[in-house]
C-alpha cells in the first residue's frame, strides 16, 4: 500500500492539472473584475459625436437606467459585437449609449454609416481620460448604470446573445423592479 503512495500523489497532481485546464476553459483569465460594481459611476461630461458642442453628463442622465457600450472603429471585437447590438438594442428596455473610445470622429461616423447605428446617443472620449475613471482597459466593454447613477453590471468583452439573455436582461429586469415601489 505504501509503495502505491507516490502513484496516488501523481494521480492527485494529474487531477489538479485537469481541473486547472477545465477552469481555464470556463473563465477568461484576462478579465479583471471591476471594483466599480455597485459604486457610483464616475462623473463625466463628454461631447456627443453628432454635435461636439453638445455634451452629455452623468447628471443629465440621472433618473433612468441606461447601458453604456464602449466601442471604437479600430476595435475589431466591436465589429463582431455590433450586429448583436443592432438586433438586441431595441428590446433591452433601456437606452443604449455609445461611448466612442479614443477614436477619430470621422472614422467613427464612417464606421456607423457602414455597420448601422444602434445607439440612442453617442458620447466621445478622444483622449480616453474619462475611460480611465470607468476602469476601461479594452473595447468593447458595457456598463449598466441605474437611475441613481450607480454602476450595477459590467461586461468586459463582447455582448453575445447568450450573455444578454443570461446576465444583462436579468440585471435590467432587477432594476425595473426596484423602480416600481
Amino acid at each position, binding site marked *: 500500500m505504501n509503495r502505491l503512495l507516490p502513484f496516488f500523489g501523481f494521480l492527485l497532481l494529474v487531477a489538479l492539472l485537469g481541473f486547472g485546464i477545465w477552469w481555464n476553459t470556463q473563465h477568461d483569465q484576462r478579465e*479583471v473584475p471591476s471594483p466599480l460594481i455597485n459604486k457610483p459611476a464616475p462623473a463625466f461630461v463628454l461631447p456627443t459625436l453628432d454635435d461636439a458642442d453638445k455634451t452629455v453628463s452623468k447628471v443629465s442622465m440621472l433618473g433612468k437606467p441606461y447601458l453604456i457600450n464602449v466601442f471604437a472603429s479600430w476595435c475589431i471585437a466591436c465589429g463582431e459585437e455590433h450586429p448583436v447590438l443592432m438586433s438586441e438594442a431595441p428590446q433591452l428596455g433601456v437606452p443604449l449609449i455609445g461611448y466612442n473610445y479614443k477614436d477619430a470622429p470621422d472614422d467613427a461616423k464612417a464606421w456607423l454609416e457602414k455597420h448601422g447605428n444602434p445607439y440612442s446617443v453617442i458620447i466621445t472620449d478622444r483622449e480616453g481620460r474619462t475611460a480611465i475613471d470607468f476602469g476601461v482597459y479594452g473595447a468593447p466593454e458595457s456598463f449598466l448604470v441605474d437611475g441613481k447613477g450607480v454602476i450595477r453590471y459590467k461586461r468586459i468583452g463582447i455582448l453575445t446573445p447568450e450573455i444578454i439573455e443570461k446576465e444583462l436582461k436579468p440585471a435590467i429586469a432587477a432594476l425595473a423592479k426596484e423602480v416600481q415601489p
Partner: protein
Amino acid sequence: MTSTGFRAIRVFVLSFSLLFAGVLFAQAIEPLPFKNHTEELRFQSLTRELRCLVCQNENLADSNADLARDLRREVFEQMQAGKSDAEIKQYLVDRYSDFVLYDPPVKPSTWLLWFGPLLILLAGAAVVVVTVRRRSRAGIAAAPAERSSVNEEDDW
C-alpha cells in the same frame, strides 16, 4: 529564383524593417519632461510596480499598449501634482482593482496566496519528521534483519 520570389523577399524585408521602425517610434514618442533625475527614477520604479491591463504580463514601464501610455501620463501628471506613490496606486486600484499592483496586498482574501507556500513547506517538513522518526525506530528494532530489508528495497 523567380522575380516573384525576389519580390516576396523584398516585401518581407520591408515589412520587417517597418515593424521595427514602429517600435522605435513608439519608444521615442514619449519623452516626459521630468524636473530632475530623482523624479525620473521615482516614476520608473513606480510604473514598474504597476501592471498593464492590456498585456497583462507587462508592467506599465515596459508596455507599448495605448492604455499603458495613457496611464503613464496619468501617473506622471499626478506626480507633478504632488501626489504620493501610495495615493497614485490607490487611484489606480479604485479603477482597476488590486490587479494593477504587481505585489498583491496582504489581506484576508490573499492570505492563502501569501501563506499557502509556507503551509505546504510545513506539511512537507512534518512528513519528513514523521518518516525519519519511524525509520529510525524501525531501524533500531529490526537491526539484525537490516541486510535483508535493504536487499528487498533494491529488488523493487
